[in-house]
């Protein structure tokens, strides 16, 4: 009788792989699957970014419940093997080409940047260049301070600390690109996954806490500061194209490790300004959407107990929130200084808009400004520091890669 039972158990655990795992791992996997379901729901309800959260959440659910014993070096993941080296097994993991050929070398981040560039209007950045770039630099405070904090108080190596600190730049593709270069993959894949999942999760919830943070850090009477759009100079497409070519060349020469991101972003901008509409449609509607979808799906299928469930994640969760909060405070400090230097002509909310989550933080600054002064129309001005923030984050990523990679 006992032989029949043991045969039955063997039969069932061979077919349903997850049942052959230790009870503790099954519990963790079920927990992660439920977390994935919550993420899908929050994406569906638009509380979190649906473009990222729906594919990532479903990937999480499936990757944790589908376990195949004996595949890969212990991962059992039928979608992607994070430790993949045996090319004869490429037929087995359907998402492997995306991970091996697009994630680990940062290509997927560049594809997203093509699309972001093709959607970005740099008019406001060029209309107020000093204000835009200096406020964006202030809003990198978290990216700067989290580096020594992570190294000194959380025990991370400089490479790891730099990867985590870049969450403060609030730019998902840059975090992915730089962490892929800075970390020793696949050995540190758990940290790579944690940083990118936490980064994207925080970018999604930024909308919820940034507004309160702006109101806490900037005096209420300053939040209502009006700004007159009639004072903005017009910028021609020719000026924008020349600027993009010159800045892309200069920045690539100064910061070669970030030149793939710089090239991708400014190529998108130039295609848009040159009105090469077929490319604009390609980059915006195909490349950006496809790469975002694949990025979220692969990231989701990588969230398994082997890659995520350890103490590192808790540290990254804490440091991610520290980095974004400090960046926002840095932006507010810059905004308040700009307000006084300009003798009240600049609304301090332009500062936190320099946290480069395009266009979320600019929209939040606009929302807060209209709350305190319904006649205020800040979004036009806020897009300047917002877009400059993408460039300053890319610069810092390059400096960190040059220093620590």
């Amino acid at each position, binding site marked *: 009788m006992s032989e029949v039972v043991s045969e039955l158990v063997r039969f069932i655990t061979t077919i349903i792989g997850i049942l052959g795992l230790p009870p503790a791992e099954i519990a963790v996997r079920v927990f992660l699957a439920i977390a994935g379901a919550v993420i899908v729901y929050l994406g569906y309800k638009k509380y979190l970014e649906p473009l990222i959260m729906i594919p990532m959440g479903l990937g999480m659910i499936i990757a944790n419940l589908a376990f195949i014993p004996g595949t890969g070096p212990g991962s059992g993941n039928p979608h992607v093997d994070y430790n993949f080296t045996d090319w004869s097994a490429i037929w087995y993991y359907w998402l492997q080409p995306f991970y091996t050929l697009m994630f680990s070398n940062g290509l997927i981040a560049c594809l997203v940047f093509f699309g972001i560039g093709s959607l970005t209007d740099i008019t406001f950045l060029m209309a107020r260049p000093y204000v*835009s770039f*200096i406020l964006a*630099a202030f809003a990198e405070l978290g990216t700067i301070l989290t*580096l020594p904090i992570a190294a000194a108080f959380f025990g991370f190596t*400089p490479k790891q600390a730099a990867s985590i600190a870049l969450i403060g730049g609030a730019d998902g593709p840059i975090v992915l690109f730089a962490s892929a270069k800075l970390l020793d993959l696949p050995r540190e894949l758990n940290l790579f996954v944690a940083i990118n999942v936490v980064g994207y999760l925080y970018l999604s919830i930024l909308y919820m806490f940034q507004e309160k943070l702006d109101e806490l850090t900037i005096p209420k009477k300053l939040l209502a500061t009006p700004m007159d759009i009639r004072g903005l100079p017009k910028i021609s497409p020719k*000026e924008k194209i020349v*600027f993009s070519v010159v800045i892309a060349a*200069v920045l690539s020469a100064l910061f070669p490790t970030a030149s793939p991101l710089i090239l991708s972003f400014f190529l998108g901008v130039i295609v848009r300004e040159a009105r090469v509409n077929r490319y604009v449609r390609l980059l915006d509607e195909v490349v950006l959407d496809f790469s975002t979808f694949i990025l979220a799906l692969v990231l989701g299928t990588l969230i398994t107990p082997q890659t995520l469930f350890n103490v590192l994640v808790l540290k990254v969760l804490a440091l991610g929130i520290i980095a974004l909060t400090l960046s926002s405070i840095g932006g507010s400090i810059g905004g308040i200084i700009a307000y006084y230097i300009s003798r009240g002509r600049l609304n301090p909310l332009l500062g936190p808009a320099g946290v480069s989550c395009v266009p979320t933080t600019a929209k939040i600054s606009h929302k807060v400004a209209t709350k305190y002064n319904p006649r205020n129309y800040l979004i036009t001005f806020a897009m300047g520091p917002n877009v400059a923030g993408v460039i300053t984050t890319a610069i810092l990523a390059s400096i960190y890669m040059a220093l620590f990679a």
Partner: protein
Amino acid sequence: MGVLVDALLSYITLFAVAVIIALLVSVIRKVIRYVGGGE
């Protein structure tokens, strides 16, 4: 200590580059308006 120094130097570099880029924008706009083709 080394990481702290690196972080501070990175911030100083970032501000310097930010000013240089802003300066370049002003120069580019002036040159283009001078040779024609601006607004």
